[in-house]
Every structure is written in C-alpha cells, then in structure tokens.
C-alpha cells in the first residue's frame, strides 16, 4: 500500500457511480415499493392451489369430482377431501370438504399435474397472512372455489390452453359417443335385419322379442360414457 491505495479508490469510484446513477437509471434502482406497486407477480407465478368452477354457480359448476388423486399425490399431504353425499347417503361426485392447509402446502404444483379434470390450479395470490395461525391458514372449499374467469385473469395462456383441452375432450367424447351410437345403431339394424331374415325364414314370434332385447342392451352400452364426468361441464 503506498500513500494512495489504488484498489480502494477504484472501488470508491464504483460505489460513487452507483450512487449517482441510481437517481436516473432504472437499472440501478430496482426497488419495487410494495404495497403501492404490485408488480411482483406475473402470469406464470404459482403459490397456493385453488379450485376452478365453470359458469355462475360455485357448486354446480365445480369441476372437481372428489377423485382424491391430488390428495394422494400431495407430498406433504396437506389436502383433505370428503366426498359429498345426496339425501339418500349415496356418494355424489363432488367434494363436501376440500381443505388445503396453506401453512403446509409447499406450492409444488404436483396436485395440479395429477388432476384429470383440470379442476385444481395454482393461484398467484400471495397475501395470505392471517392472525389465526391454525384455522386462519386452513383454506376450505368455499374459499378455494374461484371462477374460470378469475383463472383466465391470472394465468391467461394456461387457462386458454386448459379450456381448449377441455373443449377438445368434450368434442372427442361427443364424436366418440356419436360413433358408438352410430355403431350400435348399425349393429342393431344389422341384427334386426338378421332377425327379420331369420324371422322370415323361421317365422317365429319369440325370436323377434329377443332381438329387441339385444338392441336395447347395446343402446344402454352406448349411453354409458355419459357418466364420464367431463361431459358434465358442457
């Protein structure tokens, strides 16, 4: 070190540059003044899951079918689901209880990835602080339910993709259903024709009734996909 330490002066020049430039260069003053300015969230941000519902009514439009796949996939096991039942104690495909413990959730998004019904999605809400650290942090079904429009608002690209996927699924199911109905109809017709031929050949009344029975059975088969939950969303 001689009388004037060059390295130190160099360093001081750097800090002086930063001091001055912080007054006119955005680059040098990246501070975001938080409560006034909330630019901290972009459309890809994920924080805590929420449940999407379609249309106006929260309960009717709920996409979740309480299949509990997410409950199983959640690594810290912070999802808790109870299936809903109707008046006759018959389980219906809708959760009665759907709790997420936000103090445990680690925002990993695995629940989103497993959900086959595009129901659970990540929210970008981050102001979750609460005065009650037990119940206050447990988010229940009604708080979790948010509309599809909200989903479009926070994650526009992802929500559009989801909608397209659902529409494609429905369309596919529709065409499949149509194809199956068509097939069933053809089969039934063929069978009818065969039966008619047989009937013509044997001219027996009992065989005709059995043919109609068969046709009914195959029609029932064609209707089966209607139970498929996606179609509910139409």
């Amino acid at each position, binding site marked *: *070190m001689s009388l004037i*330490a*060059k*390295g*130190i002066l*160099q*360093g001081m*020049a*750097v*800090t002086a540059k*930063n001091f001055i430039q912080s007054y006119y260069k955005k680059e*040098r003053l*990246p501070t975001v003044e938080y409560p006034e300015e909330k630019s901290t969230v*972009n459309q*890809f*941000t*994920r924080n805590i899951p929420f449940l999407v519902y379609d249309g106006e009514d929260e309960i009717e439009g709920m996409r979740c079918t309480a299949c509990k796949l997410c409950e199983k*996939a959640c*690594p810290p096991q912070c999802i808790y689901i109870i299936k809903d039942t109707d008046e006759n104690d018959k389980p219906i495909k809708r959760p009665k209880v759907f709790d997420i413990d936000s103090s445990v959730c*680690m*925002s*990993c*998004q*695995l629940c989103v*990835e*497993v959900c086959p019904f595009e129901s659970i999605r*990540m929210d970008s809400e981050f102001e979750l602080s609460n005065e009650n650290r037990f119940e206050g942090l447990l988010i229940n079904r009604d708080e979790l339910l948010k509309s599809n429009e909200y989903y479009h608002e926070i994650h526009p*690209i992802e929500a559009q993709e989801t909608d397209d996927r659902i529409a494609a699924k429905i369309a596919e199911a529709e065409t499949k259903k149509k194809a199956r109905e068509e097939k069933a109809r053809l089969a039934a017709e063929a069978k009818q024709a065969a039966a008619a031929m047989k009937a013509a050949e044997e001219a027996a009344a009992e065989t005709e009734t059995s043919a109609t029975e068969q046709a009914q059975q195959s029609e029932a088969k064609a209707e089966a996909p209607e139970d498929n939950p996606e179609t509910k969303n139409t």
Partner: protein
Amino acid sequence: MPARGYHLSKDELGADILEVAMGPHHPSTHGVFRMDLKLDGETVVDLKPIFGYLHRNHEKLAEDIPYLGCMPFTDRLDYLCGMTNNWAFALSAEQLIEIEIPERAQYIRVICAELTRLINHCLLVGFFINDLGALGTPLLYALREREKILDLFETLSGARMMVNYMRFGGVRCDLPDGWLQECERIVGRFPAFLDEYETLLKDNEIVITRSQNVGVLTQEEATNFSITGPMLRASGVNYDIRKVDKYGIYDRFDFKVPIGAHGDCYDRFMVRMLEMRESIKILKQAIADIPEGPIMGNEPRVFKPDPQETYGRIESPKGELGFYLIADGTTNPYRYKVRPPSFVNLTALRHMCIGHKVADAVIILGSIDIVLGEVDR
C-alpha cells in the same frame, strides 16, 4: 502454517481460554449453524462445528413418497440452487429407469443449471465480502443481478426459488415465448456486472490483506477432506464433474475450468468470479444451439424400478451434489441419500480456522459456501 507474528501465549500471560458459542443465531454463520470457539485472546485455538438445528428429516421422508414427490423437496436442500438440485435428483432417478431425454430438454437443463451457478456464485461473493465487513454493498449488487435471473425462473417454472421444474425424462414445461431472448439479453449484460464487481473487489487492498493466505487448504489436504467444487479447484486440483462425467450434454460446450494455486480465501473468491465468466460462455453457446422439439420423454408419473442401486452426481455450484438411491421394486425409494457438497466441504472448517483470528474464522466459513438447508437436510 504461515507466521502470524509474535504473540504471548496464554501461559505467559497467565490468562485463560475464552469459550465463545458463535451461533446458532449469529449474523454471519449463514443460517442456524454454531461454532464453539475456544479463543486465546482473539486467536482461535479450537473450533467445534455444531449443526443439526435445521434438520428436517429429508432423507427418511423420501422413503414414504413416490420418486416424483421427492422432487419438490430437493428444492429445499440448497435453497439458492433449486435447479441444480432438481437435476441431480432427476439424473439419479433416470438411471433407475433408463429413459431417453429429449435434446431440447437437455439444453434447457444446461441453461437453467448455469443460470443457477451465476446466482449462487455472485451471491456467495457478496456474502463473503459481507463477512469481511463491507456493509452489504457488494451483496446488494449481487442481489440486484440475481433478481433478474429469478424473474426468468419465475416465468419459466412459476416460482423463484422453489422451482420444482425438472421431471424424470425432461422438464415440466416448455420455455414460454420470448424467454430465450430475455435470457440472452440478461446473459449478455452479465459480464458488465462482473467487470463492475471485479473493479470493486479484486484489487481492493483490504480484501487482499484480509483474505490472502487465510484458511489455506493445500492440494493434498483438500483431496483428503474430499472437498469438491470451486473450493477444491481453488486448491489447485483440476476436477470438475462437468468435465469428468460429461453428464447431460456438457461435452458439447467449449469452456474452461479456472484453477487457483494457493487454496486460500482469496483464491476461492476469485475462482468463483472466473467460473461465472465460463458459465456465461456455456450459456451463450446453449442459447445459440437449442433445438426445437419435445421436452419430455414419455414416462409415467409413478413407476416401479427394478431393485437396484444407483448414484447420480452433478457439479452443483457448491461442489459434487449426489443422490444415492436404492430401489426395491416399489414406487418409493427404499433408501434415499444425499451427498451434499456444503456438508462435506464444511468438514475442513476446523482445520482451516485453527491459529487464525475470530474474524478469519468468519470469512473462512463464508468462503466455504454453505447453505444450512443442505448441511442439515
């Protein structure tokens, strides 16, 4: 050990040894870490590292979770380098199921890992200078630059630090539109920041007098302590797993490995500075070459690998990060063991500190680059 001037021993002075428990909440123990120091005046005569305050049962927990479920937990190991942790775990699990990784995914992984290296190293340098006593100025410059990269990670994976981005056989989602251009812009501007950083610190007389010949670790000692990463290279051993294993696609890039000659704190700091420049080189090549294509091999989410064991390792910014897995034919690992670089590098702490002053113990700890999330698991 270099001569540290004449100093009266405690017997000559009739004085006693002062025991100081530094930590677990001390401003510069980098988390909840404790050093039990025995001081003779200000000179360290003995040091006992004590950790475990942040133990989270990470390894045992993984045995009850399917392989994929362990992925988000790895983010929390070294919480500054989520991407590389993800990659290390994905790498070892991929060895269990032998899966082909698409080209584009490989490139994305390299880009993410090198960005992580930039983050980690510039932060480490900041913290190191902070331990030297600068009032956080270099650290805040580092944070300023890190923020930009974290924004990139956020648009990519949705989270800034707990990315949970890699999957077995690829990555979770493709790059959003314009991400590569943004990344290129940020990487292109990073060297300017490094220049600024170097002017601020490299020739600074106080940094030089404080950190040169402090905490020396010779080549032999470093290998005996099984030190890895920049710390090993600062001691003069040319060992970089990116070069040795050539995992991923690292054999396609042209980059060099900086080597220090003295193995002291200053070398550790400078090796990291130089490594950042090499990372920028890799990033530029990767961004230029990245192909279009799929980002995931078709791998079921839950799988049952045949009973076997495997060890996958990568060069994480802190050193060799390895995952040792034993599969028993179920969906969960039978044994899941992490080889954390921070923890192993920390073993040399006592050896390096003895004979130095208290202030040096702090900067030696800082130069090791530990993250307690990884040390305690």
